[in-house]
């Protein structure tokens, strides 16, 4: 029951993350959407894995890996978005609809 709820929570976080990415927003919104998305994705994998197999160690190790990757992604994304925001005048990512520059 618990695992089910937590799985659901992760799914919700994924949905929220996608929703945030798909809707108009500035750079910060994009970043946090990515964060939420990846956290939710990790959870989405972790909780069902717990439900199925008893190997807690393996699951945890895997998730640690994923989360660290998530951190790296974050760093790169921040760098890119910072550059983009600096180049364009606004922070609205949707204004960046041309490949120019």
């Amino acid at each position, binding site marked *: 029951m618990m695992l089910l709820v937590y799985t659901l929570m992760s799914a919700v976080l994924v949905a929220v993350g996608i929703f945030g990415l798909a809707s108009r927003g500035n750079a*910060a919104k994009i970043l946090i959407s990515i964060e939420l998305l990846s956290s939710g994705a990790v959870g989405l994998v972790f909780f069902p894995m717990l439900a199925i197999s008893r190997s807690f*160690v393996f699951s945890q190790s895997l998730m640690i890996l994923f989360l660290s990757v998530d951190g790296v992604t974050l760093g790169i994304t921040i760098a890119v978005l910072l550059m983009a925001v600096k180049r364009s005048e606004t922070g609205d990512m949707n204004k960046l609809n041309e490949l120019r520059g």
Partner: protein
Amino acid sequence: MLLDDVISVVIFLSAFSTGLYSITTEKPVRSIMAAGAALWLVSLAYWHLGSFSLALMQLSIAVGALVIIGLSSVQSFEEKIVRGDVAAVLAVTLVVLLTPWVLALRFYEDITTSINVNLSSYFPVFVLIHGLLILAGSIVAVLLVRGWRE
């Protein structure tokens, strides 16, 4: 285990609402803070399950994300930080940082005797991480209070 279920439902609802709030609100700083809160709640979920390492990882992600995003957004948007925002950031950061510390103190035996990971040998690391996090959070808080402008 009714308590477990209740806790999980509470965490679920909170995470959902904060996450939703973070992406629907207009103000950048608030959305960042709300996202931080959601991620912290996820970390609590991991803690609840007993996977402390994962909880810590999630926590570090959350805080790090918050810090960096907050800093950069402040820089990008040149928003005027209002006092309410500073207070919110402070509060959230403190809570995020202190919760595991408190929890670890409270449930130390459970940690060490947990079925999953023998955490005793990692405890110094645990402390170290939290120390760094506190440090970073303090810097952020100071900067925010000072109204750091470029």
